[in-house]
């Protein structure tokens, strides 16, 4: 069945109403194809070990290397008997002593560096499931203290069997969402007959003490019995002393963690909470500033801290718990305590709730109207002001904790004098399309030659820091430049434009993004984390986008196909202008694909350029001008940068270069098959024994030919021109605004 999609870009291009063709293969594509690594199986290895992995992904051709965010993990292609690399297979080696953790894997392909996929390193023996294990009878044996890598079978339950001793505590932990999987695991411990004994469905671990020596089963399924290669998991079975809880399997970080920890924070808190401290009389006495570690445990736990404060003081309160990966919603209440006639009265001073998202989030209903990345958090970061000397109490509770009793729900509470600072995170800008487009896609920094790509950079400001933040990027491949459009004073986000020269050669490098600001007279430099989508979500109504932070910032440029369109200033020099004047900037446009519509409508990114009127570039025009009324924009003296952006639909052909190659391969396979068939015929007449072998060879050649034909057809189909909507961005335009010459003003005024 095909569906009719109606896309209406709200930005830029004058593509009015556009109907998708009836065939799904010809439906409008959102965003030019980008390389995405989707699965790595197995998705982890033991430190000091090596493992052969198979990868899958989308828009991946000519994969030359598998790379990792940790230098301790390396990979080389698996080669066949003839010495040529086996497609999509790599041998991954993990250096001895590599600490347990989760790292980013990515591949380098025709279109450049792919999106990332988690790869875990453990200190346990690792195995990979090889055969179906969906019944009690076919349960796969699992040794104690080992990890099995597998993917879930749809509408089925995976079974594992282990031998255990009576009284020996066992922990079963299934990593899924934390390693980018789409699986919501249900883990059951059952007896040897498969009868359930213990169940966990909320992602937690199962602690199990066998009632008797014997064989037990672990049954594993997805909450709604989904499955397939994207529903992978790492099932860890461990023995424990039962004394201290075992650490969870390592997990990737949510985007909210971009604002944690504050710079310079010690790894462990200075103090621990001391229960009982739920009620006022038991309040734990502390002095400010403080740094306390605690947990929301047991259910409905309240942690109360009491301290003295002086009139005029302002204290900043920060709580991290959700940002530590816990499913909590911390809430802080500060009250002043007064004693009169032996009676205590409490006056509310501050209620501190969530850390808001720096950008309006997508409401995710009708269409995207904001990014699908949330750099806010249910954690707390706020302040209270002390109006009079006295005793104060701070209550900390988990708004999700009324009935939940999990000692793992830890928090860290900081109360400090203002320490202004900021944190940064960036992600590829998503299109705001109306009428049903809810694609949420990972956008690796894989640039096509001639392409400019825009990234949103958001900041979480700490303790009242309000100044401008200059954005910069270093370590780029040759031919790639980055321009940070600064985050203005008081603003919560800015943009970063990456531009690949039209003549750039293919290249890759590890880059870093930083923000620079002046805080209390000191220049402060902070790193910026990149965020990505775990999965390319085509329709966020049916599937909830799952973003996370990346470990580092790989950037690539490729030249296998150029960008469909390049918009750049005709002169790459900084444009000089006098404050309050009007400046005209010539632009050069290079059209490489056919575009839909009559003109391209562009607006401006850049601090101070929100007021730039939309410009209209007729289709196929090779030059145009941008006129800036600096007076109207109230652009002050100084250095500025802007970029033009819009949305455009072009006819895009995916990897057309592969078509002649595939055709040649097919031709070759056909000839080989023909030859083999003839050979077999010839031999059949002379030698009955050899005939059998020749016939088999001919059959094999026939199969290879069929495969080559199929591949050729696929390659040809995907290379058909397809309407593709994407964001177009110009390369940045730098503007230096100079003060008005004083003398000339005098001259003007002196005229009669």
């Amino acid at each position, binding site marked *: 069945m095909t569906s009719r999609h109606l896309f209406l870009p709200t930005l830029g291009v004058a593509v009015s109403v556009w109907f998708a063709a009836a065939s799904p293969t010809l439906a409008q594509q959102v965003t030019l194809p980008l390389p995405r690594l989707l699965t790595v199986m197995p998705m982890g290895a033991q430190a000091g070990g090596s493992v052969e992995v198979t990868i899958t992904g989308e828009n991946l051709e000519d994969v030359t290397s598998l790379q990792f965010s940790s230098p301790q993990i390396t990979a080389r292609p698996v080669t066949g008997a003839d010495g040529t690399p086996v497609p999509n297979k790599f041998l991954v080696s993990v250096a001895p002593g590599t600490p347990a953790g989760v790292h980013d894997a990515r591949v380098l392909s025709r279109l450049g560096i792919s999106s990332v996929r988690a790869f875990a390193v453990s200190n346990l023996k690792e195995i990979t499931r090889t055969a179906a294990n969906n019944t009690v009878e076919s349960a796969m044996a699992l040794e104690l203290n080992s990890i099995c890598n597998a993917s879930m079978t749809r*509408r*089925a*339950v995976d079974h594992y069997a282990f031998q255990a001793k009576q009284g020996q505590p066992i922990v079963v932990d299934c990593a899924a969402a934390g390693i980018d999987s789409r699986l*919501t695991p*249900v883990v059951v411990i059952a007896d040897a007959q498969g*009868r*359930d004994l*213990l*169940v966990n*469905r*909320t*992602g937690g671990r199962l602690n199990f003490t066998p009632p008797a020596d014997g064989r037990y089963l672990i049954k594993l*399924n997805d*909450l*709604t*019995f989904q499955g397939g290669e994207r529903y992978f998991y790492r099932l860890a079975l461990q023995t424990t002393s039962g004394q201290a809880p075992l650490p969870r399997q390592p997990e990737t970080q949510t985007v909210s963690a971009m604002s944690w920890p504050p710079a310079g924070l010690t790894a462990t808190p200075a103090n621990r909470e001391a229960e009982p401290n739920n009620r006022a009389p038991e309040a734990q006495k502390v002095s400010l500033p403080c740094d306390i570690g605690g947990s929301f445990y047991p259910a*409905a736990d*309240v942690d109360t801290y009491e301290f003295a404060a002086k009139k005029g003081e302002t204290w900043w309160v920060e709580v991290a718990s959700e940002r530590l990966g816990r*499913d909590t*919603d911390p*809430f802080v*209440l500060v009250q002043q305590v007064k004693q009169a006639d032996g009676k205590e009265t409490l006056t509310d001073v501050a*209620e501190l709730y969530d850390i808001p998202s720096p950008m309006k989030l997508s409401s*995710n*209903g009708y269409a995207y109207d904001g990014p699908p990345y949330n750099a806010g958090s249910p954690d707390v970061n706020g302040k209270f002001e002390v109006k009079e000397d006295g005793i104060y109490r701070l*209550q900390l*509770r988990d*708004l*999700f*904790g*009324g*009935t*939940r009793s999990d000692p793992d729900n830890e928090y860290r509470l900081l109360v400090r004098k203002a320490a202004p600072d900021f944190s940064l995170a960036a992600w590829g800008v998503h299109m705001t399309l109306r009428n049903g487009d809810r694609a949420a896609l990972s956008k690796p920094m894989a640039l096509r030659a001639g392409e400019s790509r825009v990234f949103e950079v958001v900041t979480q400001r700490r303790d009242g820091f309000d100044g401008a933040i200059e954005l910069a990027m270093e370590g780029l491949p040759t031919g790639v430049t980055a321009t940070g459009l600064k985050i203005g004073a008081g603003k919560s986000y800015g943009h970063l434009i990456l531009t690949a020269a039209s003549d750039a050669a293919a290249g890759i490098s590890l880059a870093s993004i930083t923000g620079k600001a002046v805080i209390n007279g000191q220049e402060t430099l902070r790193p910026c984390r990149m965020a990505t989508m775990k999965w390319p979500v085509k329709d*966020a*109504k*049916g599937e*909830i*986008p799952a973003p996370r932070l990346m470990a580092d910032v790989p950037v690539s440029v490729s030249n296998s196909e150029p960008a469909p369109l390049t918009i750049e200033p005709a002169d790459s020099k900084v444009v000089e202008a006098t404050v309050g004047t009007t400046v005209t900037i010539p632009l050069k446009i290079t059209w490489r694909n056919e575009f839909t519509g009559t003109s391209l409508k562009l607006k401006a990114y850049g601090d101070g350029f929100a007021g730039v009127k939309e410009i209209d570039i007729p289709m196929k025009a090779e030059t145009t001008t941008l006129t800036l009324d600096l007076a109207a924009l109230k652009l002050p003296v100084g250095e500025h940068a802007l970029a033009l952006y819009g949305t455009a639909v072009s006819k895009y052909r995916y990897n057309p270069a592969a078509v002649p190659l595939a055709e040649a391969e097919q031709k070759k396979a056909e000839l080989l098959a023909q030859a083999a068939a003839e050979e077999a015929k010839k031999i059949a007449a002379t030698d009955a024994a050899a005939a059998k072998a020749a016939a088999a060879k001919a059959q094999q050649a026939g199969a290879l030919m069929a495969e080559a034909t199929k591949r050729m057809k696929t390659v040809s189909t995907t290379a058909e021109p397809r309407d593709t909507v994407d964001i177009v961005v110009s390369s940045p335009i730098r503007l230096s605004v100079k003060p008005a010459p004083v003398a000339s003003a005098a001259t003007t005024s002196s005229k009669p």
Partner: protein
Amino acid sequence: MGRLGYIATALFCFTLSAPGAETTEAPQKNPPLNFVNDIEPILTKAGCNSGGCHAKAGTGQRGFRLSLLGFEPQEDYEYIVKEGKGRRVFPAAPEQSLLVLKAANIVPHGGGKKLDPASHEYATLVRWIREGMAYGRPEDAKLANITVEPSVLSMKAKTTQQLKVTARFTDGSTRDVTSLSLYEANDKSMAETTEEGLVTTQDIPGNVAVMVRYAGQVSVFSVTIPLGAPVEVLPPAKNFVDEHVFANLKRIGIPPSPVADDATFLRRVSLDIAGRLPTLEEVQAFQTSQASDKRDQAIEALLSSPDYADYFANKWTALLKNKRDDAADITANFAFHAWMRDSLLANRPYDDIVRQILAATGTIVSNPPVAWYKRVKEPHLQQEDVAQLFLGVRMQCAQCHHHPFERWSQQDYYSLSAFFSQVGRKPTAIAGEDLIFHKRGTAQLENKKTRTPVKPAALGGPILEIAPDDDPRLQLADWMGAKDNPFFATALVNRYWKHFFKRGLIEPEDDIRDSNPATNPALLSDLAKHFVESGFDLKEVVRVITRSQTYQLSAMPNDHNAVDRQNFSHFYPKRMQAEVLLDAINQVTGAQSDFADLPPGTRAISLPDNSYNRASPFLKVFGRPEGASVCECERVQSSSLAQSLHLMNAADVKAKLAVSNGRADRLSKAEKSVPDRIRELYQAALSREPTAEEIRLSETHLLKPRLDAQDKPLPAAQALRQGYEDLIWALVNTKEFLYNH
């Protein structure tokens, strides 16, 4: 309102022709009539202020509005005396007042004739208007309570008893209000009542209660109707359940049936605890076991099996409205169902299960009980569901008016709702799904009637002062789980009793009130006590019930007890529930069902929500509920022609009979004697050995030559297979199969 409406209304309202109320024993002689004490009861008795007449919600009838059952006399007074510029009353010529002209149908009245002009009530109304329509003075005596005489009585079948109802006022005076009171039996097949308070017993033995209402007060006349048969042999009591049941049987004179045989017991208890037939192996093992406590062992095995958790999760999730309205609900519904099932598997104490639901916070996937707040969104609905489901109290009426049969006022309604007033919601990435948290602030809700804020109070409890930081729902959960809570444990044990015995000790099982007493109050009380003392152990409730001899009595009545419907003198057979029946047919035929998004072979009792009813005509026709209500009555347990036809002819049932490698297929090829194969079939379907006659009949049928559609003889193997299919078809269509007995 159309013509039919008036006819219906007229059925609710009745003409008064009873003799007048007797003279009052008030110290004052002929004091002026008082609206509250003298007039309102007349209107109530005449049905003027019934829900179908002038107390119809919102509008009243034809512009004339009264409060329901006169619970708001102040308002009624305004409506009668002042509204419409006083056109309803005419003190100068009281008989010409619209109020009496309409009531006596002198001026055409949609509700017909409600008052006879010759009646005392008519005269009282006229006198009140003539006197100037006094509302009454603040110092006037108020109604304190009513008493009914006799209040407890043993009455033989088909006998009558006139009741006398006395109203007692705050000044100590009393008044006979028999004629102005309303009477209603809680089981009309056991006792009938007249307008005048004459009770006639029918011929069903047991306990029945007649509720007596007057001016907002309720009293109860409890009747025991003995059968009077000799009770000479009683099985030895195994626990307090038996002691109470047998004591009642002795008192009433109903001899119980003997204890059922092993095969019947195993089938019954497997169906009731695990929602499935016993397996062939279980049947055979139980038969051969010589253990003296083998029945207790079977109960323990069933209770510790995941089937118990599956079966009771199926019951609870429907009541907790785990309903699929949108395809995206699947995650929430699967999570909630699974959570319930896991809680039962782990035997999480019942008070904790309820606490987890009531005070749920967070997101559904991380804390599945939150799903309940996705289904039930408003504080009032939350309160109503909680009251009915967990307390057995129906509060719905009290939203708009004082509960007619209960002590619950609107204030009680809003104060119970107020526990849910601080439920905070935040949107999540999933459309239509909020995350739930406790919103700091003073818990209170506005009483829609008085327009004043009401703070939380548990039923019958004081107003609670809850700190803004404390989640009031936790306090509600504390109150529910308190040892002395009068509703919580009672409601649960009554609900579970009904699960096993087809009939609650109180009926309906979720309508527990003073005016609807249990048929065996001591038993209900001890069951509740036992449940509380066990730490709200649900399995213990099941254990204590199923271990009792009462539960294990035969379903076959003896010479006397066939008439018994509420004293548990024999087991009352129940039709298998839709899911259980489907699973049972699969079990007997060797087929399996295939449900969307679940592993093939998933049993119908394990289905997480109602969405499967759409794809399964079988489940629908046998009454699987849609999860729309907290009432167990949503599950249709009655029989219908459609059900019979479905079992006999439906394609899905036929396909199961003929499934490849199914039981018919296997038995037709089995290497054992034909009688042994017939034995297997009977054991699988009916959990018992066939009789010699059944074997003979079956064998004859199996060996019969068969023809195909073209009337050609079928090959022997195919004919034999068809014979087994016929036999299974015949067995699953028997009442013995369809019923748990």
